[in-house]
């Protein structure tokens, strides 16, 4: 087994100096009302993140700040909360507990790791490369989002469950104002470590899960506090559903109008039957 690189030796000035380490711990929770799919996504998160802990369902929709207490008990400083509404919609909270900012996302186009269309596989609890779109630097809310995503998904090298190998990569891209999450396995063409000088032969195979996050709001506190930012182009799923229903209602209205028109027209212009019409009456 290959040895882990010694971090102390890497620092030439002060061999004894401890390098700053990532000591983030993530609490993964959900509210009541999560369906199978959302639960599988939660399990996928726990599979990928060695520094994540699972917590019981939060039974209070209105009182999300209670999650902070659970985080304090489990000594976690980051919370990943899956909020399910109407059994259809999944919202994701990225929260820095207890004072930190919180970001709220709507999750769509969800495909979990259990789906058979993702042929990739990786070592469990190995470290993953994180690749971000440069558009994350363009505005403060996106910078905040990048930071929080890194806190959650960057596997700390010092965690006891972490394996020191890097064989998968998570990418966050921004398209159409939404963040697209993709998870790939890195496949080397060459089999021999020593022979690999060029990494041009690496290919990516998708492991999953796969989803899209639409940012909604940013709050100054953990699940509470002032709204620091609101996404102007976000349209909630409820609004979309309502708009769709309205459209179908419009069709019906139009049909009714047509009907009324026809009745009126018929009344005003009665058919003039010729005399022969009376023959077969």
């Amino acid at each position, binding site marked *: 087994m290959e040895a882990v690189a010694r971090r102390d030796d890497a620092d030439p000035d002060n061999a004894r100096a401890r390098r700053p380490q990532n000591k983030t711990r993530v609490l993964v929770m959900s509210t009541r009302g999560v369906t199978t799919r959302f639960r599988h996504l939660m399990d996928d998160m726990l599979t990928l993140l060695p520094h994540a802990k699972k917590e019981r369902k939060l039974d209070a929709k209105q009182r999300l700040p209670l999650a902070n207490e659970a985080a304090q008990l489990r000594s976690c400083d980051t919370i990943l909360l899956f909020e399910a509404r109407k059994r259809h919609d999944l919202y994701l909270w990225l929260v820095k507990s207890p004072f930190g900012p919180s970001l709220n996302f709507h999750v769509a186009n969800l495909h979990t790791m259990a789906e058979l269309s993702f042929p990739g*596989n990786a070592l469990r609890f190995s470290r993953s490369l994180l690749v971000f779109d440069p558009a994350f630097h363009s505005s403060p809310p996106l910078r905040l989002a990048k930071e929080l995503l890194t806190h959650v998904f*960057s596997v700390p090298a010092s965690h006891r469950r972490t*394996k020191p*190998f*890097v064989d998968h990569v998570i990418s966050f891209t921004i398209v159409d104002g939404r963040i697209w999450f993709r998870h790939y396995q890195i496949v080397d063409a060459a089999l021999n470590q020593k022979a690999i000088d060029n990494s041009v032969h690496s290919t990516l195979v998708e492991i999953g899960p796969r989803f899209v996050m639409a940012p909604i709001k940013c709050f100054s506190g953990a699940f509470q506090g002032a709204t620091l930012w609101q996404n102007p182009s976000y349209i909630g799923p409820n609004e979309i559903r309502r708009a769709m229903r309205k459209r179908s209602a419009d069709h019906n209205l139009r049909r009714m109008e047509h009907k009324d028109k026809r009745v009126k027209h018929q009344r005003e212009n009665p058919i003039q039957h010729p005399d022969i019409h009376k023959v077969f009456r």
Partner: protein
Amino acid sequence: MLKTAWTVLLPNPNQTEVVPKVVTMAKVPQILTHLIFTKLVGIGDHSDESDEDAPLEAIAVSKLPSQTIELMANDEAAMEKKLSEIALFVDVPGKNALPFSESLVLTMPLKQKLSDKLALDDLEREKKFAELTTEAVHTGLDKLREQKIKFRRPDDYFAEMVKSDAQMAKIKTKILQQKEKIEAAETRRNNRDINKNRKKVRAEQKEREQEKKRKAKEEIATYSRLRKQRLKQREQGGAMEDDDEEFPIDLLDVEQLDSENRFQDHSDVASGKKKAWRPSDAPGEKQGRESIRNKFRTSKQSNGQHGQKMSRTKGGIQKRKGKKKRLGKSRRVASKKS
């Protein structure tokens, strides 16, 4: 909605200065296209009817002109401050970001923003994502190699994987099934094409066979003509030369029938009218010769190829100049085939 209005209207303790969030009608032109319509408590009816029909600006103007309009929250200073409080992976004054070896954070090599149309084009989008990620991965792995951090898992390192073996087996079966499906569809399509063109193909085949037959019969006719001539010459007391040398060797092609023996007139043979001609029917026998001649005379072809006359030179067909020793049968066959 109301809650939001109240929180925003209160001065934010984190801010250095209190920025009023209430905007009067005078500032409407400066407002961006998306507005949220807010009603203050106690004024007007809180009707739940949806306002999606008309643009929001129009409603704002028509319904309650004295009401205030709220801007979308965008407190950049507060966000920056929060970011500096929690930052681990970005440089902030007073604290250095965690190095690459800790964070493994990379940026995609992307010059401009990705087009919004990609959101709908699945294939293009996934290709683009994979492409960008691969390039970033290459830079990342190079960086790790520079820092001498080992990242590759040894081939004999067996540990728990993210997906179980059972699941991987299921995935494999699925991929194989898809492959089989595609192949089956391909073969079905090919068979359909063949069935469609069967008549055509058969007709072409038949034509080719008939062509062959005709040619063979032509050659046999010439062969028989030549034999007749030679016989005549012999009867007339011509020199008993080595006939084989005069014999135009290329006509020997006729004897080499197809493996399917297609030259034969199957109908005659089947009805028993004629005996099937075999190469072993030695042309030495007179009877054999006659039967051959009769057979060739009764050609089924309407275009009487057998009536063709061979051009003759004076004194019959000349002897070949430069007499060469005739090779044995096997060598002749071999040379012909080559």
